[in-house]
């Protein structure tokens, strides 16, 4: 490994080789505007075009949605006696109060911590890449992969809510109503997922290889 670091790493770019993102085939680049992978016919590029711009836009939108998603109520429970609004946090607290605190912890991590970490991690990566100061690309790379993998689990609150809405519809005893912040929350999850997809991981290593 150290021997590799000493000499400049040979990148595919320097050799004029591309990798197809879909099927991971290694291809020879040709001088054309639109290139396609011979194997799977998907468009191939040296680097994902507009990766930084797209990712930045998505991360910013997601960050904007994160505030209302957590501050405004995602769910309203109508009972015979009262109407109760619940934000994600209050849902976690009520779960903890009713004794099932492992589940409360799970929801807390999945719905509040994970999206926030995703935003922070992606933000940090983007800033680093923009400033072309890519130190420790290995750690960043690991962070990025973690973000990519873990992102989808934030959806679990959305699925739980869909079941609650479908089940708790006993007229005049209790009904559950979805509130707009749920849409914002789903937006955060989807947008961060799309952001992770649109980010070209190779950009992290470009600073080091300079090939």
């Amino acid at each position: 490994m150290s021997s590799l670091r000493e000499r400049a790493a040979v990148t595919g770019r320097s050799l004029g080789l591309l990798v197809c993102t879909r099927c991971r085939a290694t291809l020879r680049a040709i001088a054309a505007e639109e290139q396609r992978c011979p194997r799977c016919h998907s468009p191939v590029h040296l680097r994902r075009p507009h990766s930084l711009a797209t990712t930045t836009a998505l991360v910013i939108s997601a960050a904007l949605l994160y505030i209302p998603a957590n501050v405004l109520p995602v769910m309203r429970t109508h009972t015979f006696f009262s109407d109760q609004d619940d934000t994600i946090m209050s849902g976690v607290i009520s779960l903890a109060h009713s004794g099932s605190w492992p589940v409360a912890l799970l929801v807390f991590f999945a719905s509040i911590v994970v999206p926030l970490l995703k935003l922070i991690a992606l933000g940090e990566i983007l800033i680093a890449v923009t400033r072309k100061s890519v130190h420790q690309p290995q750690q960043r790379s690991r962070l990025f992969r973690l973000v990519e993998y873990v992102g989808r689990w934030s959806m679990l609150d959305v699925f739980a809510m869909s079941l609650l809405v479908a089940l708790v519809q006993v007229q005049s005893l209790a009904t559950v109503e979805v509130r707009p912040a749920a849409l914002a929350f789903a937006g955060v999850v989807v947008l961060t997922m799309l952001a992770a997809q649109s980010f070209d991981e190779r950009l992290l290593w470009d600073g080091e290889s300079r090939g």
Partner: protein
Amino acid sequence: MANPVADRAGPPEEELPSAVPDPRRRVRLPYVWILPIIVVIAGAFVAVREKLAEGTSIEITFHTADDLEPNKTKISYKAVEIGEVKEIHVSKDRKEVVVEARIHRNVSDYLVQDTRFWVVRPRVTGANISGLGTLVSGAYIGVDVGHSAAPEHRFIGLEVPPIVTSGLPGREYILHAGDIGSLNIGSAVFYRHMPAGQVVAYSLDPGGASVTVKVFINAPYDTFVTQDTKFWQASGVDMSIDSEGVKLHTESIASILEGGIAFQSPKDSTASAEAAVDTEFKLYSDRERALRETDTVAETFIMYFQGSLRGLSVGAPVDLRGINIGEVKRLSVEYDHVAGELRFPVEVDIFPQRIRARARPSSVKNTDLSDVGGHTMIDSMVAHGMRAALKDGNLLTGQKYIAVDVVKGVARETVAWDAHPPIFPTASGGIDEITDSIGSVAKKLDKVPFDQISNHLIATMATLDQTLKSTDSLLRNVDASIAPQVTATLKEAQEAMKNAKEAMSEGGSLNNGLGDTLVQLSRAAKSLGALADYLERHPEALIRGKPADPP
């Protein structure tokens, strides 16, 4: 040193048999296929189980699908869920709603021809508030399982829950009335104020002149319905303010709200056999009319009264010293244009039977039973001075009644039998008495010398005032002159006490003397005591004296 296989020397190739490829293509599935096979079997198992558990499909037609929801509304029999509504759609002729439901398999034998279905919703009908639970749990479809043997899968739903579910013991009867009053389906039927049944249905008779009401009387009350039983409308509050006062009669609060019917057999009923199902009865408009003994004979008379007829109403009683012998039938106005005056004939019905029925047999002068109309009896009464007069029954309400009684000093009159209807002689009424008595009271009050009394009172008050004033000055006197004297006296007394104290104290003049005196006293007491002892031992000493001391 291993020799590679290729270098091994061996028999020449031609001598080696060449392997024959196996022509039969053995299709050997790898073990992994067991997994989907298991899943398919499990899936089939689940599917079959669900299908079997599904139950029988039925169709119920209603006018509206209000409160019914597909896949949600349940069907319950005696509060046990036996099925669910699956689908709802409008019928082809767009007049009805067809509800497709699934009934559990184990109760599929409930589905017979006379099984009935209806929607249970909150219903408020006067006496009856039902289905409130559905406000919380949502409406459901109620079932009444029939007794028929023929299975059925298409039903016409009832729009209203049936009053009587099958199997309820009791009997249905038919009543006829002039109008429905405040009755409704579900109105209660009472027997001696106890709820005994319900109105099940009513309809207008063809021709529109009367109403038929069907009632269901629950067991065991149905055993009290005989051929003689009378039914009457016990709706609301029967309040009559008449000459006899205010009468309030009601069966129950429910009947006030909802109307009701009551029944009872008259006291002199002779029939004892229970009435059969669907026996027809007349529905009377009130209790009195129902239980009244049938008066077969009624004699109509006209009476002309002086003064206003205000307060006399149709149905007002004709009273013979407290006994109701008839009632007012009609009030009208006559204008005699020849004489140029207005007359007010009052048409009354007299029931001679009532008079006779209550009379003691010996006092009945006329035992001629052929005198059905009681003419002879009435003539005799009138000859004795019986006249009809308007009397106040109730000062409060101004209700009047007709009193028939002997009036003193009245001119001879007879009943004008030739008029149609006959005219009964009258006398003036009783309002004058009252004005008289009021007048006398007023006069008496007038006589009381209120002026003098008040003057006297004033004088007394003045004197009292004076007295009080002098008392006041006296007290002031006391204060001024007597008080200091008293104070002086008190001071002297204080001085005396002080001296006394000094005298009493140690070294005081009194003390010494007192001490000596006390010693002497004690000595005396001792000797007295000795004497007493001696006397006790020698009581004779009192008489004989003390014997001389022995030497």
